[in-house]
């Protein structure tokens, strides 16, 4: 009573037919690293533009001259470039790369396209840390800490990184209990509200000028980092990016889900820890120095997948570093309002310009599921 023929599939016939057709098709991973070059050139261009454009416009050859160690025609130009615009451009590049990569880490880790440092409350955690420091400095704590020789900036980084790490640990503890990433996102969101409430309480009891300082910090800015502070930011970001680069292989395995990744020989506990560490370091440091910049972390990985047309982290991690830097530089350029003395809040600019761009990219892809890994 055979329902149909149970003979084995005629393997020979089909395989010869397909291998004949295949002589034209190459067996490869479908990677196009050459596209990274486009990003490199874009990044260099945007970098020079940020140095050139602002309340005064400086000619390109003057900028290159100054960068090569010379003097500009006018001393003011040399000052503007070296004291203000160069640290700002470097900060923007570092911050953009850091936010992009931490967003990518979170999206792959939680296998959710909506994940990003901000969505999971990591930036909120950092905000709480910073709020605690900014709003309490000047009172008892400030005196005490100054006495210990801790400078305010290092303290901010520590507070923000601590806040970010604690938040991520809480999210992870929850992640171990719930399987659904959607539940996790809701938990992250709720945690964000919780933290905002705490910050509100702090604001309620704080001195007015401290409140203004905190609000200015929440606007976000790449311009507040001095040459003295830059090495701290750069150090934290470079360590975070290095961890992310070392995680490339693990991230690719995680695309299959944790069970599969483990069956491929991945040490999940160690990987989890490394991802937490890198994300907290990257998002925490940037949030401390530049404020909570919400948009770049979510958008850049998506832009990168669209451009590079891959889910492979061997391209995505370097791609996100470059793309993040590029997007942040462009945002800095727009916030500057060329030719005007006004400086727009960075957060408003990133979302105002970036959101429609991402909408367009995603709608053009028709299906987010396909682009997202």
């Amino acid at each position, binding site marked *: 009573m055979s329902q149909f023929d149970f003979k084995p599939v005629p393997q020979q016939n089909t395989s010869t037919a397909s291998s004949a057709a295949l002589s034209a098709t190459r*067996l490869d991973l479908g990677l196009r690293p050459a596209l990274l070059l486009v990003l490199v050139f874009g990044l260099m261009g945007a970098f020079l533009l940020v140095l050139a454009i602002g309340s005064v416009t400086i000619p390109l050859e003057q900028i290159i001259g100054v960068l090569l160690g010379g003097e500009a025609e006018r001393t003011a130009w040399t000052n503007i470039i070296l004291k203000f615009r160069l640290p700002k451009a470097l900060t923007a590049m570092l911050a953009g790369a850091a936010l992009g990569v931490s967003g990518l880490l979170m999206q792959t880790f939680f296998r959710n396209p909506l994940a990003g440092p901000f969505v999971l409350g990591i930036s909120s955690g950092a905000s709480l840390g910073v709020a605690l420091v900014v709003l309490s400095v000047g009172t008892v704590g400030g005196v005490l800490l100054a006495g210990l020789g801790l400078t305010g900036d290092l303290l901010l980084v520590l507070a923000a990184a601590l806040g970010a790490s604690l938040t991520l640990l809480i999210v992870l503890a929850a992640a171990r209990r719930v399987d659904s990433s959607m539940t996790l996102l809701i938990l992250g969101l709720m945690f964000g509200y919780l933290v905002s409430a705490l910050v509100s309480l702090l604001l309620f009891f704080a001195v007015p000028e401290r409140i203004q300082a905190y609000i200015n910090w929440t606007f976000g800015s790449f311009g507040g980092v001095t040459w003295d502070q830059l090495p701290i930011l750069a150090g934290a970001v470079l360590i975070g990016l290095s961890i992310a680069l070392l995680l490339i292989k693990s991230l690719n*395995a995680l695309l299959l889900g944790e069970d599969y990744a483990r069956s491929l*020989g991945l040490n999940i506990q160690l990987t989890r820890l490394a991802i937490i560490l890198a994300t907290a370091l990257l998002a925490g440091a940037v949030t401390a120095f530049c404020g909570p910049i919400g948009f770049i972390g979510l958008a850049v990985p998506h832009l990168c997948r669209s451009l590079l047309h891959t889910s492979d982290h061997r391209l995505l991690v370097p791609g996100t570093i470059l793309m993040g830097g590029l997007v942040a530089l462009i945002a800095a350029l727009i916030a500057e309002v060329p030719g005007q003395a006004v400086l727009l809040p960075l957060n408003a600019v990133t979302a105002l310009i970036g959101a429609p761009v991402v909408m367009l990219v995603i709608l053009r892809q028709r299906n987010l599921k396909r682009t997202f890994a």
Partner: protein
Amino acid sequence: MSKPLLVTHDLSIGYRPVRKTPITIAQALNLELRPGALVGLLGPNGAGKSTLLRTLAGMQPALDGQVLLGGEDVHRLKARALARRLSVVLTERPNLGLMNGYALVALGRHPYTDWAGRLSKHDAAVVRWAIEAVDALDLADHPVMELSDGQRQKLMIARALAQESDLIILDEPTAFLDLPRRVEIMHLLRHLAHSTGRSILLSTHDLDLALRTADALWLLASGQILTGTPEDLVLSGAFEAAFQGEGVHFDRQSGTFHLNRAGGSLVKVNGSGVPHIWTRRALERAGFEIAHNGTPPDATIDVHGSADQLVWHLHRDDQHSQHASLEALLHALHDPDAAGNAQHNGHHD
């Protein structure tokens, strides 16, 4: 006889809920898996097939006892060492984004590649071999998200093969597939087990298919496992016992399960070949019992003609009618008045 690849010693499987006593699903399991064999794990829903597979694969701790793979405890091996000995194909369907077929299979080289996951020449050759082994070369440059379930499953099997493990464990590899694809996948797995000398252990709900393809079966039911060749298990009645349930009975002759329909009348079918088979199937489906030698039937059906011109003659009591399709025949059997009409029409034709 070759040495067993996988052995369990007094294995207990189950769950350890937080702050509660462990829930044991099965205990005192002493199982053996030999190289080059395709073994089917069968059992009713909720019997614990996935739990057993996950425990054997080291993905879930055992409540008690040991799982030895090539002499080493799978729960003590480091993840990377275990990945070189054992690969899995799970029921979950990961969202693979823009990954192409080749990249998916290449992930199977994870336990062998360097920190960046670069493929050496040897790795690339193994990946190519694995893709060829499942006959999926034409899928290699397609985005996995665009493939059908069957094509995807082939690539997941190729990925497991690329891991070059001695044992492949698959949890319901045929679950989402249509029947021809199920047969294809099962035969592919059997072929791979026999030709590569790997052990393949899979759980499935396709009893019929498992009976026909597996070298051995593990029947997991009510906390016990019975093992043996499929035919032995059928003859001993173990197969029947594992799946018995109300309203279902196992037909040992055909090796399939049928719905019990009490009170179906007895019908005898005369004829041969394919039309005979499908006539019997239609009658069984409609709730009639097929008469074998001996018992006098309530009705007799003769199948005449060749493929393009089949005629069914129905004899019941002293009535006779003829029908041009099984649909008309079933209609006539259910409704004697209609039979009269059919007879009438038949005479006119």
